Each structure stands twice: as structure tokens, then as C-alpha cells.
């Protein structure tokens, strides 16, 4: 099956599934994607009426992690979920933010989502006015240009190293399972970064995080950043300064990354949301790699796993206690 057949098919199947779920009152709400207002952009949508199921789409720009919208709802929810969304759902269930019964997971095997920032860089400022996905390519048109790009080359970094493209749990799976990305070393880039000198690393963090405007798009896009009151918002006591001083900004990002230890599924939502293009995953992935090495644990795989930081074993590594 080529992409041309695949994409419309999956959209149609999602619509049919959503329509049926709503008509049969198995769910009150379906959260999925609809066509966005810009090329290469799909946008989250909330369907309560089966007639509106027509709006639902599936393509390589369904990049948001919809698990972010699941908490604090009374309704029974159907959710269109790719591999990383499902892993976040697993975490939310584990953390008792959601019950398994409350969600109907419309699982979608995912070939990765395209990164508009990478494409913008490639186009060097030329604006895309029309975009079409065809097989493994993207056909982009703008003022006096047409470019055909290989989709694979422009995937988000998190998609390139993702090892759970197929949902780990679901109520219905739409489309065929896709091949998993077994061969790649997902932490190669982090290891290379760690090999750099402290000065080089510090310079990198200084440059990256001095761009931060403290808009908290990263935090708010994250399905697992759901503290009742985030430590940065707390005013009594005020844990950190509110300005864009590098020390304050870095503390925010470092604490956020540490708070996601053993919980972060590396969906990349923080990176994608950042309007300043900051490489936030450098921090979250280091923490994720450490959790995997120290506790042989990956988040979002099974609802029965006990989170590594919520338990202990007598043989837990303890080299850090010296």
C-alpha cells in the first residue's frame, strides 16, 4: 500500500470509527485532528456530534500530543492516538489521572510527523503556500517555487528515534502496524553531547536557553506537566525568579526535566511547541537515558509497571550516594 492510498484511508477509517462511537453512545467526545489553517498544519479538534466526524483527518502534520487534553473531564472520551500519545495515556493512567475505562483509544500506527522548522530552514525563508503529501514525499509550493522533499528526512527528531510507533495499547487499531525503528541508537546524540567538555556543554545550554521567553508552551503542551500549581507559578514561597535571567530560565527547564524523570515518553511535544526553537529535549532525553540505564525502565509501556521513582529495590544502583 502506498502513502497516497494509506493517508485518505486512515482518515476515512478514523471518521467512521468516531461516528460509530458517538452514535452508539460509547463515547461522549472524540478528540482528534482536523485540517489546520496553514499548510503542513493539522489542529486538535473536539467532536461531540457524530455529524462533525467528517472533519477528522490523519496526515504527517498531526504532531500535537492529544493526551494533553484528557485530564479533568467527566465525559467518556474517544481519542485518536499515535504511538507517543498512547504512551502518555499509559502514564496518565498509572498516575491515576485517568482510568482505562474512561478512554477509548483509537490507535494509529505512526510513520512520524514532519518538522516544519526543519522544512523552513531548508526553504531558507521562502513561504509554503500549499503542501501535499504524496507517498513518501511532500510537495511544497510557494511563490515561484515547487519543492519535492523526502518526508523521512524532515521528521521531528523525536520521531526519528522513536521505538514505539505502534500504539502499545488500544481499543481499536486503524491501519496496518508499521515497522519499528529497531536499528537506531536512540541516545547516540546524547552520548555525543555528554562527551563534550563541561565548557562546551555550558556554552550550548547558555545559547539555547537564553532564547527562552518563559511562555511555558513546552510545559503546557506536555501531557505529563499537570501539577496543580507549577513551581514556577508559586509565589509563597517564590522558588525561582520570574525574569528571563538565564539562571532562572535554566532552573525552570532543569527542574521540569527532572520532574519528568521516569515519566517522560519523549513525544517531543515540548520541542514542537517552543516558538523559539529551543532544543528542550537535550535535557529531557538525558534524564530519560539515565532512567533507562539505572532502572532498566521505559515510561509508557504498560499500565502495570511501577514507576521507578515510586518504588525501590535493595539492589538499586546507588553510586550517587558517596
Amino acid at each position, binding site marked *: 500500500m502506498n502513502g497516497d492510498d494509506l493517508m485518505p484511508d486512515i482518515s476515512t477509517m478514523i471518521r467512521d470509527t468516531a461516528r460509530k462511537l458517538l452514535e452508539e453512545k460509547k463515547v461522549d467526545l472524540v478528540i482528534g485532528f482536523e485540517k489546520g*489553517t496553514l499548510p503542513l498544519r493539522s489542529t486538535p479538534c473536539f467532536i461531540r456530534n457524530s455529524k462533525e466526524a467528517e472533519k477528522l483527518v490523519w496526515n504527517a502534520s498531526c504532531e500535537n500530543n492529544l493526551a494533553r487534553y484528557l485530564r479533568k473531564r467527566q465525559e467518556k472520551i474517544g481519542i485518536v492516538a499515535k504511538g507517543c500519545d498512547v504512551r502518555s495515556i499509559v502514564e496518565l493512567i498509572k498516575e491515576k489521572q485517568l482510568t482505562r475505562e474512561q478512554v477509548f483509544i483509537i490507535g494509529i500506527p505512526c510513520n512520524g510527523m514532519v518538522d516544519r522548522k526543519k522544512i523552513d530552514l531548508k526553504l531558507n525563508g521562502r513561504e509554503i503556500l500549499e503542501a501535499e503529501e504524496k507517498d513518501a514525499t511532500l510537495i511544497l509550493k510557494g511563490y515561484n517555487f515547487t519543492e519535492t522533499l523526502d518526508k523521512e528526512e524532515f521528521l521531528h527528531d523525536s520521531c526519528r528515534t522513536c521505538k514505539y510507533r505502534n500504539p502499545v495499547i488500544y481499543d481499536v487499531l486503524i491501519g496496518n502496524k508499521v515497522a519499528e525503528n529497531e536499528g537506531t541508537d536512540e541516545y547516540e546524540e546524547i552520548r555525543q553531547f555528554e562527551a563534550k567538555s563541561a565548557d562546551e556543554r555550558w556554552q550550548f545550554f547558555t545559547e539555547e536557553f537564553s532564547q527562552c521567553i518563559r511562555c511555558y508552551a513546552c*510545559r503546557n503542551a506536555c501531557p505529563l506537566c499537570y501539577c496543580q500549581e507549577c513551581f514556577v507559578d508559586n509565589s509563597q514561597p517564590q522558588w525561582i525568579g520570574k525574569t528571563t535571567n538565564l539562571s532562572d530560565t535554566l532552573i525552570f527547564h532543569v527542574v521540569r526535566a527532572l520532574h519528568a524523570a521516569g515519566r517522560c515518553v519523549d513525544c517531543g511535544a515540548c520541542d514542537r511547541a517552543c*516558538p523559539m526553537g529551543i532544543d528542550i529535549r537535550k535535557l529531557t532525553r538525558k534524564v530519560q537515558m539515565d532512567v533507562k540505564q539505572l532502572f532498566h525502565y521505559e515510561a509508557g509501556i504498560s499500565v502495570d509497571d511501577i514507576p521507578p521513582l515510586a518504588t525501590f529495590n535493595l539492589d538499586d544502583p546507588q553510586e550517587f550516594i558517596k
Partner: protein
Amino acid sequence: MKEMKIAKNDLVSFLDTLITEYEVFAPVKKDSSVVFQEIYSGSEALLDYSNSQKPPKEMFFPQKERLFSYDLSPKKAGIEEPLLAEKQRIIFGIRPCDARSFVLLDRVFSGGVYKDIYYIDKRKKTLVIALGCNRPKSTCFCTSLGGGPFSQEGSDLLLIDIGQEYVVQVITDKGEELIKKHKEFMEADEQSLFSMRKVVDTAEASIKFRVDVWKVKEKLDGMFDDPFWDLVSEKCLGCSACTYLCPTCHCFDVVDEVIGQRGERIRIWDSCAFPNFTLQTSGFNPRPTIKERVRQRIMHKFKYFVDNYGVAACVGCGRCIRECPVNLDIRAVLNSILER
């Protein structure tokens, strides 16, 4: 209004001369985006760009600004006012939409009873040289907000690229004085003005999205309790990417940063999208959910600001449209309001 021209080849030397006398800020390429920063050579200025990632409001209303410092120790107790800018500044190459945002900010910071000395000082000492927008982006809708790709409001001089040269529209006396001092400028001839009109017409016609903001305002007058806000806000993440990247959003908070006996009172950007924005000391929050916050953003821009100043607090630059992590498009919101 006087119309002059300058050859493209002369622009760098013009900027070089300006740099000797002024702090000159211009668009500069940084990684994949464009930022406004001080340049030390005319050749650093990027002239072929669409717009900067962050709006230039920071030139007058920085994200963090020290209002004063204080010392509480018994011997040195007192307040130290910050030094005001000494050098005259020039912002070169900003887009007309952003130049127009200064005029809107003026109404807040210097138009009424309360005069903001920090803002006014910087504004007075700054000359604005805008660069017309030959190819607006698909997300631009300045023409619906009373501006346009060559709008003059907020600029002292406006440059219009007509190929080998720029036509220079001399908008203010400040602009005229500057031009007089530089020999690179000549009176624009009929040929140049003809080319300019063509460029202007083409660019203006390329802006497709139109919305009647006065009709939006009329609708909003009766929409405070409309269930519409539940629907339109459902996907909003509650971050401040839209408001911080907006050239006209100007809400701020004031915080004290204290170390021992010394402290600084600092003004920082704040956003109506945040839960703390209206949280009261009693613990009550009149805008408890995202719904009320999204409503506030739209109402402030298209109703309250119009009520207060007779103009909408939006210049149609499209930054919020391009940068919203969930594609909550303000144009779609405005259209939906009109459909209510």
C-alpha cells in the same frame, strides 16, 4: 509628504554613517530566525526578510526592565533610579505593521493620565526607519486593522524597495532632519514613483484575508457570556506564545528581586493566558479557566482597547498565527465571532 530615493548600493554606507552617531538596531539573521539587534556595520542588516521572530516592542518595553534599585541597610538606605538611555537610537528596517504597533503602545504608556517614564524616554530617543513589505506573508492581515504593507503610522521614514533603489517616504520632521544630513538621498523622480506605486498595489492586493474589525467589535459587545468561548478555547494550551510574540500585547507584572538588604524592582511581561494573571490575594480568580483567559485576549484586542482608544490592539502581523503550538488561528476566531 516628501518622497526621496536612495540607491541600494548607498544604503550600507548610509547605515555606517548612522552607526557613528546612533545606536542602530536592525534585523539580523540568527540561526534560522531573524532578530532585531544592535549592528556595528551597515552590512550586518538583513534587508531581504519577512519579519522578525519576536516583535520589536522590546525596544521600548523590554521583557524585563529594572524600575529602580533599593538598599535597606541602615547606613545606605535609599532608592537608586535607573540611568535613562543616553544615546539616540535608530530602529532600521522594521515592518510597517510593527512600526504601527508603537503607536498603539503609545496610547497605553504615554497617551493617558499615567505617563510611563521608562517607555517614553526610549521612545523619544528613537527614530524609526521602516521597510515596506513587498511580499506579505499568507498570515498577514494588516489591511484589516487600518494598516498596510506600506503604512506610515509609527515610522519617521519608510523605505520602499523598487529594485535598484529605495523610494524613501519622509513622514515626520525628525525623519526629514535625518535625510537632510545625508547626501545619499535624492528627490524621487516620476519613474521611481511609478515603480513604487506598482510595488505597493501588488503587495496590497496579495493580502487575501479581510475582516471587518468594527463588526467584530459590535458582536463582542454582546458576547461576554456566549457559550462560544467554551468551544473556541478548548484546544488552547494556556501558554503565552501568542501574547509574548504579539507586538501590541503590553500587560506586565512587577516583581522584587532581593538579595540580602539590596533589591531591585523589575517590570516583566505578563500574559492573560496565565492562571496567576488575575489571581487575587484572597485566592479568588475571576478568570479561573482557559475559557475566560482566551476570552480576555480576544476582548482586550478587539473590544476593550477599541472602547478605550478607538482602535483595535492588533496590527495583523500574523506572529500568533504562525507560532501557536496548536494552530489556534486568530483569523478563524474572528470569522467565527462574525458568524455568531
